[in-house]
């Protein structure tokens, strides 16, 4: 299937889903659906670097938060009387176009930070990169906690546009935007797999020295992967302030984003774009149900245990299990 027909099919599925959720008329379903879509974006973005190149990023929460705080910063510029020329410019943007614009800006900022960090650490062994990503999360959290303009440790309120006309209201709009983003990320991940770039990534994952020796520009490819991955995570975070209404550092940098964006691809399977999608849908829906029916702490525990279990027992995830099963059935 070509990329454009993939996008068309995915958009049709998302459209039907959106119609059904709006038709039910329960706003909570849209809320829950948004979270699952957000995790699809995060898991797929993580997998571009983690699954295709084999570099583990523990800082997903940091990139997500960069996206969220870019939105908060721009929102505060526009609403608090800074007196800057740009504020009037932002306020002139129609409400429906503001969010996509914010997503693009957040994506660029996160990609830039990913690029910077990749440049500092990617020449070393992969493990050091992973540790550095953990470090990045704490450094950024400290910076944001001390940055009063975006609310510091007190947090910051973001008010949704009122009188917003869209099926399902503003939450419906958020859902639609996140669905579009998810389709976009999936299409990119899918196209990457069969591209020159994707083969280069796979070479890095399987044997970096051999790839380098056969003329693959490894550092350049790793930087591209880091920027893409970080950028998409930032994009996933951009609508978050409008979704949640109140942003504060401890929750935005929460470990649950980091754990989920690793656990979902690991559980689904890391080698193809299907794995993170399967993992995100299963784990995302499970968590939405479990948060309501059991408790939010307990469901995080289950995610952690699932992560350990899959990593030890089924290293290729659900997709791997499925392929092994199919291979056994048709010898």
């Amino acid at each position: 299937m070509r990329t454009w027909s993939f996008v068309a099919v995915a958009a049709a599925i998302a459209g039907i889903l959106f119609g059904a959720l709006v038709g039910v008329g329960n706003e909570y379903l849209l809320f829950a659906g948004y979270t699952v879509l957000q995790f699809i974006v995060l898991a797929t973005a993580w997998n571009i670097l983690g699954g295709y190149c084999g570099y583990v990023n523990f800082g997903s929460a940091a990139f997500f938060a960069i996206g969220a705080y870019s939105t908060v910063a721009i929102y505060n510029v526009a609403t608090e009387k800074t007196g800057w020329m740009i504020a009037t410019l932002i306020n002139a943007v129609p409400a429906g176009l503001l969010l996509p614009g914010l997503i693009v800006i957040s994506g660029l900022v996160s990609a830039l930070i990913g690029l910077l960090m990749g440049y500092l650490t990617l020449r070393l062994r992969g493990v050091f990169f992973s540790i550095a990503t953990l470090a990045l999360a704490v450094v950024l959290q400290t910076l944001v906690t001390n940055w009063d303009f975006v609310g510091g440790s007190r947090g910051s309120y973001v008010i949704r546009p009122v009188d917003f006309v869209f099926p399902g209201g503003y939450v419906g709009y958020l859902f639609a935007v996140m669905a579009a983003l998810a389709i976009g990320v999936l299409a990119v991940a899918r196209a990457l797999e069969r591209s020159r770039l994707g083969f280069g990534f796979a070479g890095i994952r399987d044997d970096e020295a051999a790839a380098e020796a056969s003329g693959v520009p490894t550092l350049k490819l790793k930087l591209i992967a880091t920027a893409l991955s970080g950028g998409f995570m930032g994009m996933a975070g951009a609508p978050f302030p409008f979704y949640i209404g109140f942003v504060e550092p401890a929750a935005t940098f929460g470990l649950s984003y980091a754990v989920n964006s690793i656990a979902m691809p690991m559980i689904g399977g890391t080698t193809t774009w299907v794995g993170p999608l399967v993992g995100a849908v299963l784990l995302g829906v499970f968590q939405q149900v479990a948060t309501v029916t059991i408790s939010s702490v307990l469901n995080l525990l289950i995610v952690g245990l699932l992560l350990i279990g899959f990593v030890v027992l089924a290293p290729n995830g659900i997709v791997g299990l499925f392929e092994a099963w199919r291979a056994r059935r048709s010898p």
Partner: protein
Amino acid sequence: MDLFINALVSGLLIGSFYAAVSLGIAIAFGMLDVVNIAHPGFVILGSYLAYILNTRLGIDPILVGLAMLPVFFLLGQALYQVFYLSFERRGRDPLRGLAFFFGLLFVAEVLLILVFGVDYRYVEAGYIGPTWKLGFVDLPLRLLVPCVMSLVLIGALQLFLSRTFVGRAIMAVSQDEQALRLMAVDPIRIKRIAFGISIATAALAGAFLIIIQPVEPSVGREYIGRIFAICVLGGMGSLPGMVVAAVLLGVVESLTSTFYGPSWAPAVAFGFLLATLAWRPAGLMGR
């Protein structure tokens, strides 16, 4: 000036404690090449054990730490066995090994939250309150006791590594596994013992931690960056290098929090780590 010297002294004291926390990582990561990012989880576990036995039975936290050494040693051995069977034996797959330890850290934290909640816990002991004064220099016993004990622990381990057969075998396994096999020593057994020791140090480090500050389940996360920064800065497997790096970090952190406010302190460790990785990945004393 008084303020500066006091900040310097408390940095030195806390730095020695950081060295005790990093000890396990220096062995696991520096010598065995096992990236155990769950180490702080075990430290916090040690803190909570000290807390339980201290509040229920009134036992001194350091005694609890000492008593837990064999338990943690066995725990570490079992963990290494799982790690070896599922990852190392199947060929190096650092990605999955990392995810495994990350999952462990996360599960440990969530379990502690489920059992104890997110309240800060602390212990009682005779040396937690008082402070010795040398002129204008304050020496809080709360910091001094863990500092001295940490240095004793590190010294003992250094002696063990350089004087005993098993200790030397551990040093050897970090250099050349194959050569060790040729000497008729099972490298897996040696690594299992070394990893056991690495986790055992967490029991004591945990006891020190809860003496120094109240503990809640997510405190461990702050230590990930610190201990890896110290380990890398100290030149990986070298214990003396590690102590120098830990004290350096402690001092810089203490000066930062005295002069710029405590909310900036976490960024120092991580900034240190990023800077080390970017410009001096071989560490201070590396070649």
